[in-house]
């Protein structure tokens, strides 16, 4: 996908329409199934749509029922679909993943929520050893159409373990898709596709931007394609590649660069694995310069794969070394020093300048 399908977007990142306008929009368009929503509301809309359209879909996790999830992603679903399809589980993440594998093996479509990505670690055994392998192990006899959702990333001043970005861990696991939306539109469309997908998907939601912008979405059950990058902005001088919440800073950086006369292309990877290198490579072949931006610790991250692939596959086009703007190889600091860890818009602009200054 080379241009964002979401031409229906009504607001730009960083500009939040006034609440009253949003409410009016939402009401005016409800009849046509058009909603003006934040990303977390878009997740909710997609879950609602999936529950409505497919009786095999169930939603499960901790505090997702009456509480609507700690981020309210499942708000109201229990009321509409009942406790048998919107299921509060005991406090056991390995179990949540494991029963999802079991349910999915029998043709159900469990959509499990892990409350924060910091608590996803005990699902690794099930995801790596089973979810990603059931189809292959049985040569297609059984399969595992499950989704494991988790809010991820830092910047909300949460306690320890509430700000992790460990997407690289899942990206390296064969048989899994790892999908990360970065706008309401993409949250809606990608989550629907993830649920409809016949294979397991780890769906990571950048919680820092859960409520940052609103977009107008037609709740038509249309998914957006997985396994493809979204080019959010066309440009000829430089390629900026990112995913998740850092797309926000990346777009801001593109704007700042524009003011400096630099025309940056911005690619949202969206599906981290399998990686759509075609889009990225074609862009870099055009621009010759690339900055990859990731929030996760620097080493052995998703950005490393992208940087390596660019250099391996487009070396002759590269007019400067790929720059990576990343977190540090440290745990996320407790909130007081969290911002020291986080990559900033300025870091991206600076890295872009380094690639540009490189003759």
């Amino acid at each position: 996908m080379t241009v964002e399908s979401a031409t229906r977007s009504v607001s730009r990142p960083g500009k939040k329409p006034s609440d009253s306008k949003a409410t009016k929009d939402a009401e005016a368009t409800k009849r046509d199934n058009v909603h003006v929503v934040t990303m977390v509301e878009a997740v909710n809309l997609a879950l609602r749509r999936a529950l409505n359209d497919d009786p095999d879909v169930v939603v499960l996790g901790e505090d997702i029922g009456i509480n609507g999830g700690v981020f309210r992603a499942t708000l109201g679903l229990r009321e509409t679909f009942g406790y048998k399809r919107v299921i509060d589980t005991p406090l056991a993440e390995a179990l949540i993943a494991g029963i999802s594998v079991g349910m999915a093996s029998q043709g159900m479509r469990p959509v499990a929520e892990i409350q924060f990505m910091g608590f996803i670690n005990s699902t690794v055994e099930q995801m790596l050893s089973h979810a990603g392998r059931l189809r292959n192990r049985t040569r297609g006899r059984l399969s595992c159409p499950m989704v494991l959702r988790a809010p991820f990333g830092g910047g909300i001043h949460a306690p320890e373990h509430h700000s992790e970005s460990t997407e690289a861990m899942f990206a390296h696991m064969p048989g899994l898709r790892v999908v990360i939306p970065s706008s309401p539109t993409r949250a809606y469309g990608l989550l629907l596709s993830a649920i409809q997908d016949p294979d397991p998907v780890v769906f990571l939601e950048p919680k820092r931007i859960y409520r940052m912008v609103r977009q107008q979405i037609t709740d038509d059950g249309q998914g957006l394609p997985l396994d493809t990058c979204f080019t959010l902005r066309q440009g000829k001088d430089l390629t900026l590649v990112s995913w998740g919440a850092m797309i926000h800073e990346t777009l801001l950086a593109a704007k700042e660069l524009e003011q400096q006369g630099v025309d940056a292309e911005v690619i949202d990877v969206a599906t981290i694995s399998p990686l759509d290198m075609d889009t990225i490579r074609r862009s870099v072949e055009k621009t010759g310069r690339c900055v990859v931006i990731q929030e996760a610790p620097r080493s052995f991250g998703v950005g490393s794969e992208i940087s390596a692939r660019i250099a391996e596959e487009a070396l002759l086009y590269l007019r400067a070394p790929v720059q990576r703007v990343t977190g540090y190889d440290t745990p996320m600091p407790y909130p007081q020093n969290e911002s020291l860890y986080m990559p900033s818009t300025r870091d991206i602009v600076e890295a872009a300048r380094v690639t540009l200054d490189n003759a």
Partner: protein
Amino acid sequence: MFDDLDQAPGKLGFIDARGKSVRTLPDDIDVAWLQKSYQHMVRIRQLDKKAVALQRTGQMHTYPSCLGQEAIGTGIGMAMQNEDVLVPYYRDQATQAIRGVRLEQILQVWGGDERGNLFEGVAARDFPNSVPIGTQMSHAAGIAAAMKSRGIRQAVVANCGDGATSRGDVYEALNLVGVWQLPMVAVVNNNQWAISVPRSLQTATRTLAEKALAVGIEGVQVDGNDVVAVYQAVRSALARARCGKGGTLIEAVSYRLSDHTTADDATRYREASEVNKAWDFDPVKRLQTYMHDLGQWTPAQEQALLVAVKQEVDAAVTAYLKTPPQAADDFMAYVFANMTPPLLAQREHLLARLERDNAAQGGKHHDS
């Protein structure tokens, strides 16, 4: 030997180690049932024997024998209905065979061929056996939850070993069975060893059945060498499960008469005397004695069975050894429903490599 193999109060048993009936057999058990169970047990023992022999001669990779525990797998298999789902571990060959998994498929799995997991018919929705200890129990709970949510009045049987009871995920799954009243029967094959670690080093509880108390489900200990006891416990647990009365944890006390697998050497860590003693409790022999004493099993019948079983197993071995190789790219073709672009590219790479190696070596695909 740490857990008593003798029948004792609180441990369900019908036919004791000497082949004597110590309790009236359940109504639905007749001679035909006993003979059928016996046949299954003898058959799987023969399969095990062959599999180990194949391994010793380099025609099989690591194989986990269920020698001495045939009554567990058989009792379960006899108790399950077709629409129930089995989530086995690697010593459930007997149950799998009863559910129609072909003997050569069992050999294929351990011979290193994923196609052995292409179960058909009754077993079509069963899980393949689980290698990561304990992880299968939450699959089973999920399947049970799916049944419950769909209003299907069937149940899941999920098995694991005594060592597995130390794994937290087994507890998590059983706890869910309790709190969601799931139609699931968990059978612990307590063969007293987890490789070299005796049952007594896994937990301080007197029995494994009493772990049911921590999750609010029924717990039953049975003589795992008595196929009738296993059958009866599983059958009634399944009946309860199917009509919404919740799950059961069944501890079947038995003994691993073989090495852990063909890769193991149990003489390193346990006494021959212990193993010899455990042979006195052989589940196969006792059933034979019992039927014989009933006048329902003659040497001629035994002879005929041995011949038939040998033929069947030999045929399975032949089929196994004759299995045509997989397509080279099979290991890529099933990772996703449709091969992703990266995998398609990697398949090109694989095929080119094989062509190169074939060209260089005239057939042999490649060394390392």
